[in-house]
């Protein structure tokens, strides 16, 4: 289950949907909007998502994790749009018979989500400026 969400993520409900009597371990990861980044005070942020490809690539990542880790159940939801400090930007949850696989699978998924999905983050700073994260080197005018 991979989704792009326009509204608040509910980790408790998503976790409950992974319940499995054969699972001994649940590992969950959440990315929260924090109030600072690289020395700047952050006011809020904005995710731009290209959904058709984000969804197909997100599903591929979950399938890769299930191939690597037997008996894994896994889900991931990523927000788009405007988020405030403290909001949950991304949730990853996995269950597995044992904890080692649960931690490794959860980590695999969030790392791949961050590196491979067509999702961009624009930070709005307390100073009034704003900037696309990771873009400082990609554009000639930046």
């Amino acid at each position, binding site marked *: 289950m991979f989704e792009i969400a326009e509204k608040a993520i509910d980790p408790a409900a998503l976790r409950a949907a992974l319940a499995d009597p054969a699972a001994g371990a649940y590992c969950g990861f959440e990315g929260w909007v924090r109030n600072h980044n690289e020395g700047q005070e952050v006011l809020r942020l904005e995710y731009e998502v290209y959904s058709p*490809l984000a969804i197909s690539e997100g599903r591929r990542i979950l399938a890769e994790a299930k191939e690597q880790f037997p008996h894994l159940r896994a889900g991931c939801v990523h927000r788009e749009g405007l988020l405030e400090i403290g909001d949950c930007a991304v949730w990853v949850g996995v269950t597995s018979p044992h904890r080692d696989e649960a931690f490794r699978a959860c980590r695999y998924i969030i790392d791949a989500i*961050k590196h491979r*999905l*067509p999702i961009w983050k624009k930070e709005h700073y307390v100073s009034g400026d704003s900037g696309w994260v990771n873009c400082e080197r990609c554009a000639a005018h930046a």
Partner: protein
Amino acid sequence: MKRITVRYFAMFREHAGMASETIETDAATAGDVFAATRDRHGSSEPAGHCKVAINDEMADWDAAVADGDEVLLFPPVAGG
């Protein structure tokens, strides 16, 4: 010449001042399209940090483009 629709995302879209355009080009690869639209998206180093998709499939920069293709230019991603 080919007709290629180019879509710009995030910072590329802001720099281009448009979300997409259709161009006439003799570009052979996705990388050629990136280079041909450099003035639009403003990026100077494609292969390293940016990504490209052709017709909603992730692609390599040396993937061939054909008449009628849609080429999506992605600045460095930052999910999570």
